[in-house]
């Protein structure tokens, strides 16, 4: 097709959708050497060759360089198929900076400081998010994006000072004047109680002695206590969440910290703290028991919500601009933001969180107002015992909707402001559910020419896109990948409403195809068909495990993680392959619990 250009002064109608977020992509990318983790990003030069010998380290450093992404995923799928893993799998020691939110949570819950995010808004480093052009969803805690720098450290030091001043003013007098003797004895008692939760390690006489000496040297008074607190908060033990496994396996505190973080989105407190202090999380059976217990706790909602919001990029609906006539109330927006989290948590609590449950359920979860907006009848009340809040209802999905990839909140979030944006939707779904992504094509100028093709308003959006994409070999091969997914979703408009006419006001054409990493094509029709296709896809099972792996381990996977991921899928499959069985399997896999030691 010949590109048609228009005078800029005339109102123009051209293909706008391809370029918004997805034109700059192709299916295959020339392999780029990944940077080793310990190197600063190369400036003004080619990315250096990977000098690490361990394939486990050969992963993107900052997430922008994701050229190994598809290769890694294909290797992991192969590992799942081959069942050819060694008897003993050990993970690498790892550590990451705590996020801004975790900093505040820990201070609030451990020190009882009652800080709010606003009071530290400009004193703490920003909450990090992956760049929007990388396929790693919104995990804001990935070590790939959270790096220490002098700028961050300066922020921490100033925040520590402000916090210490607050604690000195509000609590220090009480702490150092306890009824247990001298100020030193009182502070020793405080350290025994608080330091393990702050440093995520067992109480240690050496640590305590050093801090007490510092307290005494600093005056053994309230100000000395403040300085000691600053020192505690500047330590790597506080600023990092570590899974070092220095003895060859994670310590009880490291396990507890990981469980609290991923399952409850919280620091280690209460019974879990007691268990960690008693070194009660060493044996695999103990860990499995604890994971099961924590999944049953209502606090698991927080973990599910954090995971789903990151996995499915729920912030897109937070920042989505609706046209004036379709503007959503704040309440409706809030319902849509949390819809997928609420849905998945409901499935978990009602033992329906199998793959089929996720994609074939004909209901969603929301309040009555949301049901009215989308014309979903109320199917039933949700018992308060499930812990989902008083006003939420089980809403019946109507028309051809079924499953997660038909929910109005998710669909609106991955659409453009005014249009469905077929390739953008396809790109999102392929990245989030199939762990496949595209990179910049070698000849972008040519691609842009195709993208500037004048739209034919007499054709349906899907047909028109198909025709234009196929007109160029440069675009066609890659767009098949994302268009095929996006086409089937045309039944749902950019605001999440079901429809029979597309953005060209032509009857919706909703035939699509889902392409797996091995090239297998699964044809389908409509959103229901796509959900069925997804439920039958082996790639989805692997991808969901990969997404949970990223969330739990706070890093992007590498090919070397294939055995941990495949082992977890096998173990979860033995229990019926549910969301919770996968979650549990990853947290109790030997690749997670066992870590290589120095020299290994």
């Amino acid at each position, binding site marked *: 097709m010949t590109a048609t250009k*228009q*005078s*800029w*002064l005339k*109102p*123009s*109608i051209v293909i*706008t959708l391809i*370029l*918004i*977020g997805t*034109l700059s992509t192709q299916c295959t990318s020339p392999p780029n050497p990944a940077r080793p*983790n*310990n190197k*600063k*990003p190369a*400036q*003004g*030069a*080619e990315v250096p060759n990977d000098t690490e010998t361990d394939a486990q380290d050969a992963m993107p450093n*900052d997430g*922008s360089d994701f050229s190994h992404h598809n290769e890694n995923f294909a290797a992991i799928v192969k590992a799942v198929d081959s069942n050819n893993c060694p008897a003993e799998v050990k993970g*690498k*020691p790892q*550590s990451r900076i705590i996020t801004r939110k975790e900093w505040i949570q820990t201070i609030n819950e451990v020190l009882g400081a009652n800080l709010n995010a606003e009071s530290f*808004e*400009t004193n703490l*480093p*920003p*909450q990090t*998010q*992956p*760049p*929007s052009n990388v396929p790693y969803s919104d995990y804001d805690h990935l070590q790939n*994006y959270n*790096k*220490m*720098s*002098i700028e961050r*450290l300066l*922020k921490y030091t100033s925040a520590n000072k402000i916090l210490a001043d607050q604690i000195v003013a509000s609590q220090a007098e009480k702490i150092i004047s306890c009824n247990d003797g001298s100020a030193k004895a009182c502070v020793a008692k405080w350290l025994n109680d608080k330091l393990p939760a702050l440093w995520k390690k067992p109480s240690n006489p050496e640590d305590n002695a050093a801090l007490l000496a*510092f307290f005494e040297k*600093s005056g053994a008074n309230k100000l000395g206590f403040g*300085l000691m607190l*600053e*020192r505690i908060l*500047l*330590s*790597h033990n506080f600023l990092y969440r570590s899974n*070092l496994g*220095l003895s060859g396996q994670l310590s009880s505190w490291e396990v507890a910290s990981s469980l609290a973080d991923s399952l409850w989105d919280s620091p280690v407190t209460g019974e879990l703290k007691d268990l960690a202090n008693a070194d009660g999380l060493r044996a695999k059976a103990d860990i499995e028991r604890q994971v099961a217990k924590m999944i049953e706790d209502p606090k698991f909602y927080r973990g599910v919500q954090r995971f789903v919001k990151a996995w499915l990029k729920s912030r*897109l609906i937070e*920042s989505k601009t609706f046209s004036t006539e379709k503007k959503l109330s704040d309440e409706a927006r809030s319902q849509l933001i949390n819809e997928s989290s609420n849905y998945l948590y409901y499935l978990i609590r009602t033992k329906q969180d199998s793959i089929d449950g996720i994609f074939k359920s004909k209901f969603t979860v929301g309040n009555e107002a949301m049901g009215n907006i989308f014309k979903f009848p109320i199917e039933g009340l949700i018992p308060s015992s499930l812990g989902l809040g008083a006003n939420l209802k089980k809403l019946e999905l109507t028309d051809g909707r079924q499953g997660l990839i038909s929910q109005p909140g998710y669909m609106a979030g991955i659409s*453009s402001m005014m249009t469905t944006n077929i390739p953008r939707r396809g790109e999102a779904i392929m990245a989030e559910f199939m762990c496949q992504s595209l990179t910049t094509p070698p*000849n*972008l100028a040519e691609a*842009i020419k195709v993208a500037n093709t004048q739209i034919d308003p007499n054709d349906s959006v899907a047909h028109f896109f198909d025709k234009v994409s196929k007109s160029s070999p440069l675009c066609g091969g890659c767009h098949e990948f994302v268009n095929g997914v996006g086409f089937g979703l045309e039944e749902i408009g950019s605001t999440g409403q079901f429809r029979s006419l597309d953005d060209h006001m032509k009857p919706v054409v909703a035939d699509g195809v889902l392409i797996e990493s091995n090239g297998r094509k699964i044809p389908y029709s409509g959103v229901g068909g796509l959900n069925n296709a997804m439920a039958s896809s082996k790639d989805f099972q692997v991808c969901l495990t990969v997404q949970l792996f990223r969330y739990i381990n706070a890093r992007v996977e590498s090919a070397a993680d294939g055995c941990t991921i495949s082992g977890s899928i096998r173990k979860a499959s033995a229990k019926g392959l549910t969301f919770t069985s996968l979650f549990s399997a990853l947290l109790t896999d030997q690749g997670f619990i066992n870590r290589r*030691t*120095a*020299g290994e």
Partner: protein
Amino acid sequence: MSPKISRRSFNRYLSNSMIAAALSRVFYDTQAFGAVSTKKLIICMNPNGHANFDTTQSNFKNTLNPAVYSKYGQFVSGLKNASADQDWHGGEGAFLSFATRGKSNTPSFFSTLGLESIHFSAVSGNGSNGSAYGRDSTGGALDIFRNPATAVNTIFGKSMTSVNPSDAAAIQAGKMSLIDPCLEDVKSVQNKLGSDKVIFQEYLDSLIELQKRTQAMNSNPDGRASGSTPAFCGSTPKVSDPGDNHERYKVFLDIAYQIAACDMMRIITVAFGDNHSEGYHGTIHGGRAQEYLQWTGACQTRIAQLANQMASGPTDLLQDSAIVYISEGGAHMKDGRFDQGHPTADIPCVIIGKLGGTFSKTGNTSANGGGTPNLYRQIVDGMSNGSADLSTLQAKNITPLGV
């Protein structure tokens, strides 16, 4: 100290917005106006490029006071966005860096200066902090103010108290007593990690840098260039978010002016949004040329008004400071047609101010095939008097643009 500005003359420098008026009340309480002499850089950006060189120059020329235009205006043609091979989309995190290709998040050029910086963005893009332009020394996102009220409360509500040298030394000594044991702790863990010891390397590097800076502060307790006077902003104006993106951009430029005049920060970036900001990115792909031209033109006009303000006080701030207007995108108007893609050629580059001798030319100049890293190298050299450590950013071999 230079004389304080009169109320009547100061009113001339302010825009008409209510927020500028609120800021002005704070200004009357400060002693700083006209008293500063340190080099300050204000980088103003709008995403998605510009119309073309001529349109941009015309927009500035129509707004700049003739004296400012002739004395300080420099319009650089042919500058390349060196971090964008063919496409700048999603490459915000590399744009202000010395990187010559790729979109990876990379340290901004100013991170090597170790100066206080502050960053504003009028629009919350889809990329949020993940798509921030300003990057720290390891490529991490820097804080971005998106709400003027928060910015004003933070900046003008900040308590800046004078510390005498002996007290300052004691404070620094206290800081050292916090840093030193942390260094020992992390070195001890590293020794147990064998080949994995790199896990904490960035923390170790940052602690060592903090240690160095703290030690340096002991010899120069107030931490500021000699001859400058710290600003004391006595009260915090009540400012609210105007809601509208264009108004917010104006407000941030007003705040940038106050910060520069008060000598509160040395590096200020003001972005309209990132290039994922849907409504504006959509103007290029949607072929909404008129809307795009109005939007970029309005940004440029407002930046020119800022330049007029900077030059109009008792102290001409543009001698020691500069406004640099750039965008990651190239020219969209070519041969009377509107490019709806992601053109990379001829990104806008307007420099207004001398930045203490960093920039010597005026009028129309050429980048002569140079790219953004060359521009940044010139700025870094100028602001640091050639003393910046460029080795970690691998910028030693990058030559200044020469404009």
